[in-house]
């Protein structure tokens, strides 16, 4: 267009190239394949090193209002997409409602509200993490699941001194990457979360 005329040949060439690419479908080039494989190999090698370190926790990392939280994976039964839930009248606000997970009726807790955290940031709240121990089982809401990872105990620092109140009770520690590890055992054992009301 610089000289005021369309270079039709160039345009045609570009369109043809695009059409060819679409027709072939996406196939990574040999270079890309090699690079990906190399990256994975490196990643696997790293994890092995981590494993070698003595004490570690396996945690499921999730996002909630742009903060990262982790729960030890052996407390987690599964994660489940929040499709439909039934609001339950007459319960505190931290109880979102009931969901049916493969025939089991479970309550869902919004831990943001349970921890009295300020309502900051927009939440998607489209995933439930089902946690359980021998006696108790319920779901907690999460924006998104980041994944499962191992966290060395030595890497875990003490809870921040700024944290107070109810939140402090349920924290296990904070990692160097500012991920908050929740103490699922305490959550499950907490009496406050069990509602026993009669109306």
């Amino acid at each position, binding site marked *: 267009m610089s000289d005021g005329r369309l270079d039709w040949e160039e345009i045609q060439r570009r369109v043809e190239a695009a059409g060819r690419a679409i027709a072939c479908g996406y196939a990574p080039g040999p270079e890309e394949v090699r690079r990906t494989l190399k990256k994975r190999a490196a990643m*696997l090698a790293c994890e092995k090193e981590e494993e070698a370190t003595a004490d570690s926790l*396996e945690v*499921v990392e999730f996002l909630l209002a742009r903060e990262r939280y982790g729960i030890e*994976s*052996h407390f*987690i*039964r*599964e*994660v*489940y*997409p929040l499709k439909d839930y039934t609001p339950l009248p007459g319960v505190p606000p931290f109880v979102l409602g009931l969901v049916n997970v493969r025939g089991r009726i479970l309550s869902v807790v919004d831990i943001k509200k349970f921890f009295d955290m300020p309502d900051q940031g927009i939440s998607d709240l*489209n*995933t439930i993490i089902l946690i359980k121990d021998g006696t108790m089982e319920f779901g907690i809401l999460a924006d*998104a*699941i980041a*994944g*499962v990872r191992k966290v060395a105990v030595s890497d875990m620092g003490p809870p921040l001194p700024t944290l107070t109140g109810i939140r402090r009770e349920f924290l296990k520690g904070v990692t160097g990457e500012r991920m908050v590890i929740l103490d699922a055992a305490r959550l499950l054992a907490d009496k406050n979360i069990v509602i026993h009301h009669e109306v």
Partner: protein
Amino acid sequence: MKWFVNLATRIKLFLSFGVMLLLLLVVITTASTGLTDFRQSQEELFRNDFLPAIELLQLRSNQNRVRAQILQMIMTKDRAKQQALERDIRERTKDIDDGFKIVSASLQNHPKELKQFEEIVSLVADYRKTRDQQISLIYTDKAGDAESLDATVQSERFNRIREIAEKLGDTAVAQAKMRITHADARAKFLFQTFVGISFLAFILGVGAALFLSAVIAKPLKKVTMAAGRIASGDLGVAISEDDRKDEMGALMKAFTEMVRYLQDMAAVSRQVAGGNLAVTIQPVSDKDVLGNAFVEMTGYLNEMAAVSKQVSEGDLTVRVTPASDRDLLGNAFVNMLASLRRINQEVCDGVNVLASSASEILASTTQIAAGMSETATSVTETTATVEEIKQTALLSSKKSRSVSENAQKAALVAVRGNATVSEMVGGVGRIKGLMETVAESLVLLTEQTQAIGEIIAVVTDLAQQSNLLAVNAAIEAAKAGDHGKGFTVVAQEIKSLADQSRQATEQVRTILGDIQKATGRSVLAAEQVSRAVEDGVQQTTESGDSIRELAESIGEAAQAAEQIAVSSQQQLTGMEQVAMAMENIKQATLQNVLGTRQAEQAAHTLNELGQKLKEIVSRFKVA
């Protein structure tokens, strides 16, 4: 050769033919000697070689017969028959003796062969003795003894005789061959001699002929040709005079003298013919007829010349007396004088009339000349004016032609413009159609982009679910402990795939947004283009109509310009013709002026001539 040339012709001929005869004599002598030799050689051949050879053959034959008959006598018992055979033997013996005589005679000059022959003779004598013994044995009925004798002694002798006779015969034949070879060589030599002498004679004969021709015939021919040229009046003949003492020399000398005399006479005649009458001629002798005649002729001519001189000085009173009635020149002079006197009188009268007429002519011619000069000036001015008009016409013709050509070109351009506009209308129509297609395609593209967006939403959902699945799998793997480690890896992979899917879908979503915007802009642009194209179609149609009208106007203008050009051309042609006519008139006028001047000049001359004539005529003394 000088001495030969100086010999008298008779002696030259005698010498030439004498040499030829001498050569002929030599040839004849040689030929007769050769023929005698040949005859002798033939005779010797016959006597010395052929005769002995034949006789020896005869001898052998007779000897054979004798022996055969002896054998026959031995064989037969019949006494009568035996006696007959014996008689025959006796006859043969006599023949053999005759042969001996001839052979011995011919071999007298050859001692070696004679010795051999004598051996034969002695052998034959021995043979005869034994033969007689055999015959007597036969007659006494002792044929067996006779036969034994024949087989031993006689047979040996017989063979010996045959051998020697054969040898002698061979010798004779060889000698004969040698003699023939000798004769051949001799004949060849004679032939060569003849050829050589004949050749020599031929060369000498041809040489003599050529030489005689050069010495006698050529000078004769030269003299003959010279005589012929003199007979035809050509006296420029020169004969080269070699210093010869023979008859030819004398002839040439006499001829040269004759030519010289004739040339002298011719020179005198030429001088007389050229008017020189003061020439003097000396006759060679009283007998010199030509010389004397010349002297008389010059005298007569001198007399006539004196009379002519007087007449030329204007004295017509002179009297001439002719020598005789046949004196043509004298009579002519008399008549001429009479005529001259009469003519002079008549001329005098005529000249007077002529002089007065010439004066009148001169006056008239002068007037005409003045008038013609004025006319010529006017014509020249008119011609110049016509030329100017012609130039103007030419210019206007050129201009109108160029206008016509330009108009035609413009008409052509207009037609082309019309066609171009039609094409343009069609082209713009096509553009419109294409733009509509583009707009439709863009709309379709937008719709499809929307469809892709929906698909992307599904894919996003799938990615989320995959993520969850991966997490679940990881959790289950953790529960399984060490056994679940492999599964952990799989779960991680699935999670990574889910992340990638999510990222990809986000990218696709962004791109789709861009596409959506771009297509929106394209649709807008297409709409604008479509409107612009519609406007263009309308404008093009209008401009096409304008151009068509313009083309028609230009066509009319071109026709008009063409007509103007044709008219201008015709005008130019007319003007050229007028100019040419004016030029012709001018030329004619100029010629007239010139002619008049000449006439005036002539009149002047004529007048002067009349005056002069008057003077001249008055100079003649008539009485």
